């Protein structure tokens, strides 16, 4: 564990009877970063997070969270930890304001301010059972942030939230980040991960498949961009020039419709060529690979095919592979 690591996990293994859920996992969460933990269902994300929170005892491996061992020093660790759990609830008849009062430790910030910020001020006297799914999630976030934690663990936080509420929650997470709080975010939403996370760790079968910044993951696993435009009777020289551009994997022509497939850098080169030919088509359209595409590639194990339709030889009219 380096000085700047808030969480260090080495060789974590956890099995439920004979089913190994986490198998030799190594993970670091650096101070002040938002780390996204993602992967397919059953990849072991929640179990990993539960071990970090001290809710499950690992079969083997070492964990350090905020300098504490989550197994033997859980109580001290949890005072500095804010947690939003994937599957949990509050007592049905507990009111919103009572929940805030119940979970507030000595160092807690003013609960009303958080309730106001997350649109729950008017629901202070409402019972937990009467809250909608989105309101419950927002209340859990309020409770997770209440005690000014140094590390916040959020598991499937925005599940069930409407777009406005989700944006509101994202803003709150960005504010936490700006305040220097470290965030471990478990999510299936790649849009969310791309919007919020400094780094992403992708898990499969209980281990780490890959990690990096969103841009690095996209570059490694979905570096296929497409440029589409319409050009009736294009000059042969234009097509030839497009084929040999740096990064271009292929050029496809279907009547007047032209598609250039290549790396992200291709976009700039194609643009430059079109400008030189004196015309930028009005319907110029660029398809950029997303983190979602990178995840599909990673999790399905088929590199180079994400984000775009597979480019087959039959479709290509030229270009370098």
């Amino acid at each position, binding site marked *: 564990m380096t000085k700047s690591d808030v969480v260090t996990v080495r060789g974590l293994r956890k099995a439920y009877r004979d089913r190994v859920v986490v198998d030799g996992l190594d993970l670091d969460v650096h101070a002040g970063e938002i780390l996204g933990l993602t992967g397919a269902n059953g990849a072991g994300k929640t179990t990993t997070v539960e071990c970090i*929170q*001290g*809710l499950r005892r690992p079969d083997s491996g070492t964990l350090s969270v905020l300098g504490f061992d989550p197994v033997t020093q859980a*109580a001290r660790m*949890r*005072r500095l*930890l804010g*947690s939003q*759990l994937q*599957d*949990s*609830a*509050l*007592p049905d*008849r*507990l009111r919103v304001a*009572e929940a805030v*009062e*119940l*979970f*507030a*430790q000595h160092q807690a910030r003013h609960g009303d301010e958080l309730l106001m910020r997350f649109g729950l001020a008017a629901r202070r006297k409402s019972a937990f059972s009467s809250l909608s799914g989105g309101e419950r999630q927002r209340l859990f976030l309020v*409770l997770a942030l209440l*005690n000014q934690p140094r590390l916040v663990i959020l598991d499937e936080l925005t599940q069930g939230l409407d777009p406005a509420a989700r944006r509101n929650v994202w803003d709150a997470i960005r504010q936490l980040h700006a305040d220097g709080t470290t965030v471990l975010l478990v999510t299936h939403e790649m849009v969310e991960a791309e919007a919020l996370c400094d780094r992403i760790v992708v898990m499969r079968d209980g281990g780490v498949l890959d990690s990096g910044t969103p841009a690095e993951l996209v570059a490694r696993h979905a570096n296929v961009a497409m440029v589409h435009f319409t050009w009736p009777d294009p000059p042969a020289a234009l097509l030839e020039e497009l084929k040999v551009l740096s990064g271009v994997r292929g050029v496809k022509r279907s009547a007047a419709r032209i598609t250039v497939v290549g790396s992200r850098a291709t976009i700039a080169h194609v643009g430059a060529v079109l400008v030189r030919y004196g015309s930028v088509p009005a319907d110029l359209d660029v398809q950029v690979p997303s983190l979602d595409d990178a995840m599909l590639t990673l999790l399905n194990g088929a590199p180079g095919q994400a984000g775009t339709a597979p480019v087959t030889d039959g479709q290509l009219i030229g270009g370098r592979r």
Partner: protein
Amino acid sequence: MNAMGRLVKAEMKLMVRDPLVLTFVFVFPIVTMLIIGGAFGTTPTPAFENTNPSHWYVASYLTVTIAAGGLVMLPVHLASYRERGVLRRFTAAGFPRWSFAIAQLIVGLITVTAACALLLAVAAPVYGIPPVHGAWRVVAALVLGAVAFVSIGVLLGTLLPSARSAQAVGLLIFFPSFLLGAGGPPPHVMGHMVKAVAGPLPLTQLTDAVRDPWLGIGHATGSLLVVAAMAVAATAIAARRAAL
């Protein structure tokens, strides 16, 4: 306020909002005490150890309140918490390991104390409250019995997988115990077999330990010791099981 105080405060509010608690711990013992207590008149008879039958039931029904709290209210409450992940949330939020178990014991004891007081308040103008012959033994039995049954309730709540199963098991234990050990016919009118089954029941032991010294029938020292042993054992196991 510390974590324990906050938990006790919140749990007390939740208890009084729970219709199951209000029905089984507060209303049911009073209603049945009023009915059964009036069914056998007020003339002392040998079936009731030569005591006033109404007074017999007033003394007995305090333990029905305790049993209802322990066997019906708490198991459902706790199993529901476990089933829905409430306990995990308390754990993750950093509540001290023993805070929840102790808070449940405190809340359970406050609830049954309040229910007992209400039962006596209702019984007083109707049947009168019988004079207490062995006050210290009665108080000791009530306190130890409350601790024992609250702990049994906490234990059942941690063992049973869901609120529904806790309700089913709780009621299954409560009603036979209630009929054979406190609120049903007196032991003298029971058949040999029924008496043999009823005798060792925890609620029978508690009722004997409360009623006998209260009405001056006897000391019931053996029953008091059994209740004390139950209290110690059940509390030790329940506290371990309910630790966060």
